[in-house]
């Protein structure tokens, strides 16, 4: 019976009721009303709780309960039931961070995009055009091909003026632009950008699938974000593979190197604390007193960007003491089996001194074998002659099932006892030239080296081992040669005393830590770990820094051991259910030739940053090489496009559809004929690469989709270049290209284009930088409003997103938006009756395919210079033909195509059939019944269905597929492997299962670690334990990379390269105003935004000063008369940003931190320098592309999407900082 509620006034009469007193009136009992207590009880009552997670830029997939009350998301709380880490281990929970915990605010915030928006100028033009043109494509043409009209709406970008639009109208506008571009300029002028699929892979796949179906390239992001460590492909042939965070607990010695774990990996940081409780020693290497430094037993405050010098010195100590002075058996054995140390390298002799060249291959020693240019040799102690061990790149593809790490000769089958050094059998102690890089001028070091002379193929050949070269490179004292011995105290590269001048770190500390690191590896069987982070990864020369650092874990045999090795958590890219996702994301189930463009090159040219190069690349070339082949960075990118090293979309200065028609007219019948036609056209220079003339309007990208990202202001390095050239709107660029270097391979147009893009289309739920500069903003669902999947390298399970509420207002999930768009495109294609087309598609030489054997010996042969023939897929990009019918885009988008069953699935050079799984999906997801191309295919029109398909088709989430995958690898390697997955063969993840509890993935050859029996994931453990080769030239971990371009830049081995010498201004410097200071400008992670929440959210803004800030040293500030919280200008020739100064002794002198992704729409005043609002953190930045990261067609240095390619690094920059004279909010 419901108790009648008494009125408050009546209840108030209780006031007069007698009061019971007890204990001598010490306490009393009253009859006062207690109804008010229910308010507090109701506060924590809810109607519904749903498991979901966050995906700003964070793949942490922390499990969250989302609480819904009266249809409103009211709060979120940590969910606790993670899969266990097993006995004797701390568990995953608690996971979560204060940033993520505040997300529910955002759903209903004023920043939420609730409806589709178009800029008023544009929609008026469009409506007018539709009045006068029957055909929507003609209508669109009348706008974009009319310079005045085009300018009117492009100039309005970033200046407000949005009006609400209806979904159908805006989708039709976009479709018209897309199809007009397809027909006029080519499908590869429609471009999509969305980063880090792992953080919400269905949403990523939705647009990626759409782009693939309409023939538009997808841009990579890992390299563009400068999170990709190019050293990883160089050393391991692997994109990035790292231990999950719980594996830190297995470590005995952890160095956090440029990584701020508690700040950037908050939910995982507890494992670091727990590892310490267990007894691990922790070293922090960081210029500033970072949060991670407080975990440390020793903190090395290093001069920023000099980490390579410290690592080289530590390597010097380890090599000296544990390889030369006293041979450590564990290290030597590890080096022989798992690294390229014993492999032989040829030397060239000139004027009595030697220079290291390429590896010695089977072909050189006269061994008759398939792929003899890809099988490097060792010296066998047993036979005192050459041997070709199994597991090399050549044996990966020769079909002989000998691709494994057994140290036996691949021809004779005899065991090999490889010699690590030729010392002892040498014919000579010669002098080898080692390149050395320094701001005081590069120079050549001369070092002693044991050399063996052989007569091979009638030529005197000089050889040595990689190990000998490495010792010479590091300057280790071996007691050979004439030169006087080097001690740790000599300031000779790369001793501890030498590094002290660079890094500012005492040599004694370096010796101590190097010894400890190695000794711990001896005592614990390799459990020495280095956690590396953005602090050392966002530099121009991050790859040389990384190679010097990673050599340390290789030298002590820590890689491939639980608790040991490298741990790189920059970008956190690990999409666990990889194959299923790839199938859907690249629409492999239908067409299958996705255009996967490396983002950095695309933006470098699209934003015309290439026009502003001022430092000739020849300054950076090896002092041994005569000079660099080009002066201009961009010329190398042209070379890379031409030789098939990197993808290059837009590809040709001609529409790929027209090109096909021409080829057909010229008599080409097969794709091979078309390839030959294209090659001949290129050689005759009748056809050109678009990249050779990026400022020609036929080569512009036309439509750019951005979703799940904030490109304009957060990741768009060179912000003002984006505004000026890509968008053509008001910008704050503070220099011009009048005295920049002119390229050789690119047509220079005096007038740089402005406003290349016809449409910038943004799907987002926040009105942030990109949305504000877009032409069209489509309202997207948040993470509490859609079905999706998340996974990460920080832990091994797959986590769901689930809708706690349906997408509010007019927002839709990304999947539904692209579905609606595909319908609009199909409908428009019907309306204008578009015929099916065939298109010529050029793809680069891909890693993990036979194409990685394209260009032997790492020798550069440029067909355009007549050095070789242009052969598609060999000396130039592969040429393929794809047929597209734009009327079918929608049907294909929403159905899983038949190629899943017809063609093999696979990854990383393995393939297997998933026809059975395809059949089961038909049953589980239902078949398409409508009469279309998709009839009978599994239905994936809903995001949840796509998620189910991904889980069923992937080896990490379907046990049967995992076993098939391992069997496939067994066939190549002749190893017993499938036991790694057999125990879980019966499992097939479903969305319901992972919603009930996230599930740990099944061990799969898609990755290199094992989860068997609940083991913690650590990379390369299957390589080490099961003897699966690395996907490198030698099949081993590489100390030596012998590509011609690596020699040109002196990077065949790890070395130290200083940060670029950057002057804020070359000319046209703004007048000095009061005191100014020049500081190195760094943009690390923000504590109260990124990864898991946005800067502009109110709960986060209240935590630190509520607006943009720049941290600087208190003494630097004092010299410049800047006080804490003063407004300051930071500027250089790229642009200016205005922020408040935060003064701290935590920041060393000489550098300034501006935490990245501080949104410009929050509290940014104007500056007189540009007469505009004071920029973003990216305004003073631009990227510098590095030629060695463009290499392709050569073993592990072959292209893969997000695997290799130049990084969009932005740290080698300086800014001028001064107090802002007048704070003007530009509000009048």
């Amino acid at each position: 019976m419901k108790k009648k509620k008494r009125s408050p006034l009546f209840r108030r009469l209780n006031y007069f009721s007698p009061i019971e007193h007890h204990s001598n009136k010490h306490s009393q009992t009253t009859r006062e009303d207690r109804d008010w207590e229910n308010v507090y009880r109701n506060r924590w009552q809810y109607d519904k709780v749903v498991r979901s997670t966050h995906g700003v830029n964070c793949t942490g997939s922390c499990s969250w309960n989302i609480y819904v009350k009266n249809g409103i998301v009211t709060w979120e709380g940590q969910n606790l039931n993670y899969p266990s880490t097993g006995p004797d281990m701390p568990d995953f929970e608690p996971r979560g961070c204060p940033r993520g915990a505040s997300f529910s605010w955002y759903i209903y915030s004023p920043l939420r995009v609730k409806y589709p928006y178009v800029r008023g100028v544009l929609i008026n033009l469009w409506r007018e055009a539709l009045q006068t043109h029957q055909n929507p494509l003609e209508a669109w043409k009348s706008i974009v091909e009319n310079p005045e009209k085009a300018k009117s709406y492009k100039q309005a970008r970033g200046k407000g003026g949005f009006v609400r639009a209806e979904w159908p109208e805006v989708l039709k506008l976009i479709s018209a632009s897309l199809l007009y571009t397809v027909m006029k300029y080519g499908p590869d002028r429609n471009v999509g950008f969305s980063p880090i699929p792992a953080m919400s892979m269905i949403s990523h796949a939705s647009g990626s699938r759409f782009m693939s179906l309409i023939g538009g390239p997808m841009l990579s992001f890992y390299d563009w974000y400068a999170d990709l460590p190019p050293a990883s492909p160089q050393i391991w042939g692997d994109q990035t593979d790292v231990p999950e965070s719980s594996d830190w607990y297995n470590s005995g010695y952890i160095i956090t190197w440029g990584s701020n774990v508690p700040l950037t990996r908050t939910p995982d940081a507890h494992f670091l604390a727990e590892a310490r409780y267990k007894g691990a020693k922790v070293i922090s290497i960081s210029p500033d007193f970072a949060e991670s430094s407080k975990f440390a037993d020793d903190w090395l405050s290093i001069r920023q960007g000099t980490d390579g010098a410290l690592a080289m010195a530590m390597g010097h100590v380890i090599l000296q003491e544990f390889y030369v002075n006293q041979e450590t058996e564990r290290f030597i054995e590890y080096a022989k089996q798992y690294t390229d140390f014993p492999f032989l390298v040829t030397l060239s002799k000139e004027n009595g001194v030697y220079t290291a060249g390429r590896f010695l291959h089977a072909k050189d020693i006269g061994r008759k074998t398939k792929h003899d240019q890809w099988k490097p040799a060792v010296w066998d102690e047993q036979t005192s002659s050459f041997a070709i061990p199994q597991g090399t790149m050549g044996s990966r593809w020769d079909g002989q099932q000998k691709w494994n790490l057994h140290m036996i000769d691949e021809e004779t089958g005899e065991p090999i006892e490889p010699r690590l050094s030729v010392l002892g059998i040498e014919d000579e102690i010669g002098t080898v030239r080692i390149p050395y890089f320094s701001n005081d001028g590069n120079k050549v070091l001369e070092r002693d080296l044991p050399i063996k002379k052989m007569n091979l193929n009638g030529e005197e050949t000089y050889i040595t081992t990689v190990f000998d070269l490495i010792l010479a490179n590091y300057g280790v004292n071996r007691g050979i040669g004439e030169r006087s011995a080097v001690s740790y105290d000599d300031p000779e590269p790369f001793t501890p005393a030498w590094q002290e001048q660079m890094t500012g770190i005492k040599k004694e500390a370096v010796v101590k830590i190097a010894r400890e690191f190695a000794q711990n590896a001896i005592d614990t069987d390799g459990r020495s770990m280095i956690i590396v982070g953005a602090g050392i990864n966002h530099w121009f020369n991050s790859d040389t820094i990384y190679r010097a650092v990673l050599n340390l874990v290789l030298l002590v045999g820590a890689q491939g051991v639980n608790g040991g090795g490298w741990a790189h958590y920059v970008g956190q890219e690990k999409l666990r259910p990889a194959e299923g996702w790839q199938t859907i994301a690249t629409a492999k189930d239908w067409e299958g030739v996705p255009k996967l463009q490396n983002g950095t090159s695309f933006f470098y040219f699209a934003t015309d940053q290439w026009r502003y190069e001022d430092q000739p690349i020849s300054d950076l070339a090896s002092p041994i090489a005569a000079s660099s082949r080009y002066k201009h960075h961009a010329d190398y990118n042209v070379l890379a496009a031409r030789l098939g090293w990197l993808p290059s979309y837009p590809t040709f200065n001609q529409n790929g559809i027209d090109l096909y028609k021409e080829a057909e007219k010229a008599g080409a019948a097969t794709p091979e004929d078309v390839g030959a036609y294209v090659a001949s056209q290129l050689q005759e220079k009748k056809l050109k690469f678009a990249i050779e003339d990026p400022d020609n309007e036929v080569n512009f990208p036309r439509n750019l989709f951005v979703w799940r990202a904030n490109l304009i202001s957060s990741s768009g390095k060179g912000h003002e270049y984006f505004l000026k050239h890509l968008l053509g709107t008001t910008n704050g660029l503070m220099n011009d290209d009048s005295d920049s270097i002119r390229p050789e391979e690119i047509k220079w147009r005096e007038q740089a284009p402005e406003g290349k893009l016809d449409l910038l289309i943004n799907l987002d739920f926040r009105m942030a930088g990109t949305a504000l500069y877009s032409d069209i903003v489509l309202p997207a669902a948040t993470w509490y409003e859609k079905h999706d999947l998340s996974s990460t390298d920080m832990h091994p399970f797959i986590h769901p997103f689930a809708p706690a509420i349906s997408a509010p207002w007019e927002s839709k999930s990304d999947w539904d938006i692209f579905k609606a768009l595909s319908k609009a495109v199909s409908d428009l294609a019907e309306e204008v009756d578009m015929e099916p087309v065939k298109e010529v598609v050029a793809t680069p030489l891909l890693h993990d395919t036979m194409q990685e054997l394209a260009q032997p010996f790492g020798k550069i042969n440029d067909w355009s210079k007549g050095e070789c023939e242009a052969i598609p897929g060999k000396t130039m990009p592969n040429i393929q033909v794809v047929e597209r019918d734009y009327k079918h885009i929608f049907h294909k988008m929403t159905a899983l195509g038949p190629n899943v069953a017809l063609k093999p699935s696979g990854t990383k050079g393995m393939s297997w059939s998933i026809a059975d799984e395809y059949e089961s999906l038909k049953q589980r997801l239902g078949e398409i019944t409508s009469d279309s191309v998709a009839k009978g295919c599994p239905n994936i029109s809903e995001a949840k269905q796509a998620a189910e398909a991904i889980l069923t088709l992937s080896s990490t989430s379907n046990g049967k597929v995992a076993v098939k995958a391992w069997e496939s690898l067994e066939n190549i390697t002749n190893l017993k492997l499938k036991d790694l997955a057999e125990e879980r063969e019966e499992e097939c993840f479903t969305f319901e299962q992972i919603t009930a509890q996230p599930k740990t993935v099944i061990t799969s050859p898609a990755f290199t670690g094992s989860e068997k029996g609940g083991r913690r994931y650590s990379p390369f453990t299957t390589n080490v334990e099961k003897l699966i080769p690395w996907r490198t030239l030698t099949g081993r971990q590489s100390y030596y990379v012998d590509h011609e371009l690596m020699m040109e830049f002196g990077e065949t081995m790890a070395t130290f390269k200083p940060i670029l010498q950057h002057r804020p201004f070359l000319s046209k410097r703004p007048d000095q105003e009061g005191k100014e200071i020049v500081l190195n400008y760094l943009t690390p992670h923000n504590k109260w935004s990124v990864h898991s929440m946005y800067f502009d959210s109110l709960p986060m803004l209240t935590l630190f000063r509520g607006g943009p800030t720049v941290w600087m040293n208190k003494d630097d500030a004092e010299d410049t008369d800047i006080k804490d919280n003063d407004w300051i200008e930071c500027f250089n020739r790229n642009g200016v940003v205005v922020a408040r100064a935060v003064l701290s002794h935590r920041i060393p002198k000489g550098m300034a931190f501006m935490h990245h992704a501080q949104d410009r729409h929050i509290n940014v005043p104007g500056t007189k320098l540009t007469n505009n609002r004071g920029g973003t953190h990216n305004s003073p930045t631009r990227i510098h592309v590095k030629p060695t990261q463009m290499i392709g067609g050569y073993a592990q240095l072959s292209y893969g999407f997000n695997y290799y390619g130049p990084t969009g690094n932005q740290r080698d920059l300086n800014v001028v900082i001064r107090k802002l004279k007048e704070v003007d909010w530009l509000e009048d």
Partner: protein
Amino acid sequence: MSGQILWGIMPYIVLTIFIGGHIYRYQHDQFGWTAKSSELLEKKKLAAGSTLFHWGLLCVVGGHVMGILIPEGVYASLGISEHMYHKMAIGAGLPAGIAACTGLVILTYRRLFDKRIRKTSSPSDILTLLLLLFMMLSGVAATFLNIDSKGFDYRTTVGPWFREIVLFRPDASLMESVPLWFKFHIVIGYVVFILWPFTRLVHVFSLPLKYLTRSYVVYRKRS
């Protein structure tokens, strides 16, 4: 006729709204029944203004009780002459009034010109303060103008008028000879009383007097 409306009918309308309004508010707005302390945002001015105002006001209210509720006869029977009463009323009443006024000026200044207080003020907060200020100033002004010992004696006019109202025998004619200043003071009083239940002033009735006697440990019975 206007006298009858103003002094015969209005008082009952005012009292009805005052009492009814409080009941309504208490029944329907339990969580809004508050003094809306802004001490968190500004302390210094509040400490001075609030102390002066509240203590001054308590004395002023006491003075009103002595002057209006208690008939003149009571004083006469106690042997307190007109002159003595007058001296007492002005000697104690004026300083109290000035203290309360000063406090109120500080509080009003604080509410209008302190940035944080202004930002968090509702229109009713500002209106309440301004009305109180007017009422106080008019009261003090009336007292000042009446400082002459041969002045107007409200104990024979306003006092009886008020007591008759309470006894439901309204007599508007008692107010005829009252000077304008006093009338003005009373009319502003009407406005204040009408708005009272709908502003923060309700906190007057929630003075936690129990705190003075309650035990150290308090249990509440389950209802």
